[in-house]
């Protein structure tokens, strides 16, 4: 499936009204949309992303060491969104994940991140990113 469908779902959940479960799930879906797009693109760049819980940090770390400012910024924002997603999923007594505008922000943010990530596959950016992540990967 296309991970961007998660964004469509997140938008629909937000539009359905201020139901707390919807809002929390929208943040979750927004995160996973951006994460999977990031993972897919790194895969197309020939990097292996583990298929387990370590995938989250791996994608973030690779993006943050891509050598391209806009892509590295996506890496930072993706880990921020992960933290928001964790709160939304697990901290049910915390009302912050139920703020409508915050959740709208998360969804819009994820769309912006996806748009940035999609630019990674065009040359010459693609080659630069490939080189930077490879160099970083060999050093770690």
């Amino acid at each position, binding site marked *: 499936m296309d991970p961007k469908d998660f964004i469509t779902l997140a938008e629909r959940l937000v539009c359905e009204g201020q139901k707390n479960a919807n809002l929390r799930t929208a943040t979750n879906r927004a995160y996973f949309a951006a994460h999977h797009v990031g993972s897919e693109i790194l895969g197309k760049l020939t990097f292996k992303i583990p298929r387990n819980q370590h995938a989250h940090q791996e994608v973030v*770390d690779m993006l943050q060491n891509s050598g391209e400012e806009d892509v*590295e910024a996506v890496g*930072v924002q993706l880990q921020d969104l992960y*933290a928001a997603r964790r709160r939304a999923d697990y901290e049910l007594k915390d009302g912050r994940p139920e703020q409508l505008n*915050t959740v709208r922000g998360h969804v819009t943010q994820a769309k912006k991140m996806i748009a940035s990530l999609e630019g990674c596959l065009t040359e010459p950016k693609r080659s630069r990113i490939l080189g930077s992540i490879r160099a970083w990967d060999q050093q770690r």
Partner: protein
Amino acid sequence: MEHIIEPGTTPSIPLQTSELIVHYAKRVPSVQPENESWLLNSADTTGWCQTFEKIKGQSTETIETIFLEEGTSMSSLTGILSLLRPMPKDKLFQMIIDTAMPLNRHMTTLITEVALHNAMTSRGEILLTETVPGIALKGALYFAETSTVRGRDSRVNTPLDIDVIAGVPLSDEVSDFASIHGLRSYLADTFNLVRRSFSSANPLQIEYEHDDETEREWLAVTVRVSGKIDGVLEQYDAYTRQFMRLVPWPARRLIRLNYDIV
């Protein structure tokens, strides 16, 4: 560590000002309404004198109203900054002891304002040395049950072991995590950057978070902002780019930002 100091004596051992303040505050459990003499004696700047003239002789409620109406009260800030900035620690100690200043809530509020103002305007390079946030935050928090200017959070009630970075009080858990991972200076930079990046007057929050899914942990800074979503996201983008310059990878894995748009 606790030192015993008799009122009216000069401390003979080096002390953190905050320790003295807290110690002294503990000795004066009843908050006097206004102990004006030390303010009068020390009020050697125009700004502070003007503010003092306004509050002199007024009831507690009126004074509070004046501060509320004036907000941060730049004249007070300017005055008290001028007053405290050049003052050596020992003189500050002596002034407090001699005048039996009971840390009334207006003073603690004012000094807190100074500390926060400094932290915000000098990017963590505390103009008044590290002693003033100690006075301000620990002293103010000691009387946390009193109201504070502009509705600042006054729920904290255990000031004695509060750690503070760039004006933000840290829980023990956050403080320990920051120290263990060498994040203290990065946190100061982050707090100041968040204040500069987002149009928010709300105090920052910082929490330790552990993720059971990935077994990872980090510190989450939360900023509460009001405004249009697109505007906030633009501020967030600008923040992110500056954050990457200030906090290198992998340290930046351990500091995360959450915005709450209200």
